[in-house]
């Protein structure tokens, strides 16, 4: 399969974007039976759940977790940028072009053929890259879990404290969310995370109960 084959592969479908925030286990991904995107250190989750797709962009991720990700998610399509991460090799890797420049550029939106290759995508945060890849794939509803952004607690993840990371501002993240939601005309983005600190005017809110189509099945098991 070529990366171009993912264009509109999920046209009109709903997907789940799984962040690594400290609130992730309040709405575990097992409760949602949709094609899903996992990011960064999501592979550290216990259990058998795996995302449908994985996206990672950072050099630090490659250096510290790259081998483990390639091992744990060997069978999962992984989207990794070039030329930044050319050295990060493994099975089922699909390389998208990290375009220099702004997040959203007129005429270069990701919902068109070749958007992940010759056109490329610009991003500053991992979720901006994920949203654009999902848009490229044709998803029209994007549910987000594990998105917390608690002030002063940006280094906290579902697996614990990332001591080597740096604290970030809410504005830094919110600007990207807002720009993506504005650009993705007719795409419904819903933050269904529990205990989230993202205002609804930045990321529209949704109730996870309305979307947890696999919760009862999971609890029955």
């Amino acid at each position: 399969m070529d990366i171009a084959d993912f264009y509109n592969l999920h046209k009109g479908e709903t997907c789940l974007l799984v962040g690594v925030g400290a609130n992730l286990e309040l709405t575990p991904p097992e409760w949602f039976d949709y094609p899903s995107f996992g990011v960064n250190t999501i592979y550290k989750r216990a259990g058998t759940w795996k995302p449908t797709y994985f996206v990672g962009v950072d050099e630090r991720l490659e250096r510290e977790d790259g081998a483990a990700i390639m091992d744990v998610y060997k069978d999962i399509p992984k989207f990794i940028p070039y030329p930044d991460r050319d050295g990060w090799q493994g099975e089922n890797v699909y390389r998208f072009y990290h375009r220099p420049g702004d997040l959203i550029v007129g005429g270069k939106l990701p919902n068109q053929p070749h958007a992940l290759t010759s056109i490329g995508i610009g991003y500053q945060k991992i979720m901006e890259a994920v949203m654009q890849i999902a848009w490229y794939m044709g998803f029209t509803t994007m549910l987000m879990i594990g998105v917390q952004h608690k002030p002063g607690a940006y280094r906290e993840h579902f697996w614990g404290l990332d001591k080597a990371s740096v604290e970030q501002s809410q504005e830094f993240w919110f600007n990207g969310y807002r720009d993506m939601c504005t650009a993705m005309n007719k795409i419904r983005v819903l933050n269904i995370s529990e205990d989230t600190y993202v205002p609804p005017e930045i990321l529209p809110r949704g109730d996870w109960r309305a979307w947890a189509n696999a919760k009862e099945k999971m609890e029955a098991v």
Partner: protein
Amino acid sequence: MPANQGTYLSRGKNKYNTHVTQTFNIDNGAGTTIDDVWYLPYKTVLVAAYKVYTEATDTTGAASANVRAGVAAAGATVLASTALDVATAVGAAVAASLLINEFAAGTTIFTRHTGVATTEVGQYYVEYVYYFLP
């Protein structure tokens, strides 16, 4: 043997030139500074300044490093202290705001990079677009 320099043409006021600093490594050390020195022999007008990335940066970390420029070492009268850019692709040229544009002949511009601790990926240089005044 000297190279053939061709017919001399007056460049005139509108001919833009570029000056690039040395390439700075973002993780040269927490708080560690590097100064790039550029001497202006003629009266000069700076048109624009860019941070040009020769190695991509991660989504976090790079913003803790900064660059500034002034007419004295450690100065910030030409470029205010500006954080470097996260998740910036190779080849990106990010505009930096110039605080002053005209410089007298004999001025020196000091571009100061202040880094972060290892290991943070990313390298860049500062490119100035300018022209000389007669």
